[in-house]
């Protein structure tokens, strides 16, 4: 069965392009161009995956997730954007998106990413991996849950290879792991990113904004 997908992006042309690319691979059941339109639409359609622009005129992708997630916990979000500031991307991920890919992604890779997100995996593009490494950069740990606040050496290694452009399969071969284990590491990083109350994370975002 084809995955049911909703597109949320304020550029109609872009939505038309994505819909064309994904035709036959997934079922695009709805589209919206703003937070106000997207929230009721997604609640009504209850799709498998929402492709979400990081920036929307009336708030960001974060607003859409906040409006939908409490009632529709099964809906998965995948952020899709051109080039954004790291703190915005991390913001959408922390709000609940399960991955981030750039708009230059090829059709087959996008379809693959939608499938993985629908299955509950995390999708990290090289760019996102770089941002996450940056956000978790070694710093003094400030209280909180140590397990959530630090990346393990292995997770760091996996993220670095993703940032360098390696696919999960290649990473698995290089680190002598199974693909499933690599996926588990990425999901674990996503969980830490979403649940950590790490002070550095907010301070990092603050600094990025100030720079």
């Amino acid at each position: 069965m084809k995955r049911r997908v909703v597109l949320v992006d304020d550029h109609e042309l872009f939505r038309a392009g994505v819909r064309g690319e994904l035709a036959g691979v997934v079922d695009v059941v709805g589209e919206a161009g703003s937070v106000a339109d997207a929230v009721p639409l997604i609640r009504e359609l209850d799709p498998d995956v929402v492709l979400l622009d990081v920036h929307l005129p009336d708030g960001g992708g974060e607003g859409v997730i906040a409006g939908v997630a409490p009632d529709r916990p099964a809906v998965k979000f995948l952020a899709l954007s051109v080039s954004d500031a790291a703190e915005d991307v991390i913001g959408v991920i922390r709000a609940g998106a399960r991955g981030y890919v750039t708009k230059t992604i090829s059709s087959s890779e996008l379809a693959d990413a939608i499938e993985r997100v629908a299955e509950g995996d995390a999708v990290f593009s090289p760019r996102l991996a770089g941002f996450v490494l940056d956000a978790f950069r070694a710093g003094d740990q400030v209280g909180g849950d140590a397990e959530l606040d630090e990346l393990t050496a292995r997770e760091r290694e996996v993220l670095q290879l993703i940032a360098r452009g390696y696919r999960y399969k290649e990473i698995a071969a290089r680190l002598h792991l199974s693909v499933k284990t690599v996926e588990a590491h990425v999901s674990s990083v996503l969980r830490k990113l979403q649940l950590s109350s790490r002070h550095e994370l907010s301070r990092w975002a603050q600094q990025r904004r100030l720079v």
Partner: protein
Amino acid sequence: MSALYFERSGRDRVVAGVCGGIAARLAVDATLVRLVFAILALAGGAGIGIYLALWVYSGGRRTWVAAFLLSCAGAALLIGLGLHGASAIGAILLVAGLAVVLVRGGSLRPGGSLPLVGVALLIAGAVIFLGHSGARGSFIAPGAVLGALVLVVGPWLFRLTAERTERIRLQERADVAARIHDSVLQTLALVQRHADEPTRVAALARRQERELRRWLYGSGVAEAASLVAALADAAADVEELHGVPIELASSGDAPLDDRTRQLVLAAREAMTNAAKFSGAAEIAVYAEADPDSVAVFVRDRGSGFDRATVGADRRGLTDSIEGRLKRAGGAATITTAPGEGTEVELTLPGSRP
């Protein structure tokens, strides 16, 4: 703002830039102004006096005082030249009239009204002056006539230069239109034709953006200030030249100095090699910078190669990448095998002491 407001010209100057300043203020040729002053100077040195008064009061401050001083200077000079009684009064009236006309503003501008009081003073002064100066006024008369002439011809000259400015503006507009036609419209046409090739369209858009920026903001985009920004520029260049998309990821950033600049150049060479020889559909570049070290990875999933088969004459790898890093105090590691793709790892130890 008064019509008399002017700044002495810093560039266009012979003595103190007064003439240049007036010329700039009235938008007329400075030579013409100098000629007027020269002839007025012949008229009993009046030109010199006026010049000095304007010099002292340049900047448009206290214009009434300037006008008064001008009148005094003119009259004093004329009296000093031996003019008495009626002719001196005439001269004073003449200069005062001239001053009023100038100070009241707008007299030398198209559409500006000529102050009637000033004109009346001017005419009365000229009549009395010319009527009483007789033979001694042979040099003074041309000065007075010339002064009147300036007032009459001034607005016309001004309008002429305004028209010239307008013509220049239209010319510039035509240049802009031609420029946009050659670049932006051509690019848009290309974008329409290649609408189904996103990479091509993106490359076209990026190139056009950079071209337009260079043109709009001078000789080039403000130079990249950080390692990641410079890598992004290099990636865009290579992408544009070879049509292979490059995905750039980064964690941390470093300032651009001599060493990191060498690193960027080496990375650029690695990207170019990947784009030209690997046959890969895309290239991944990752930069990782912290105070201890800077590392850049350039990876492709292309054909790879065997170091042994690369001719010694191929300088790219040894000179542009390995040699460059070595000179900068870092190292380059190339991991490749036929069919395995290539990864070039460039590292520099931290620059912090």
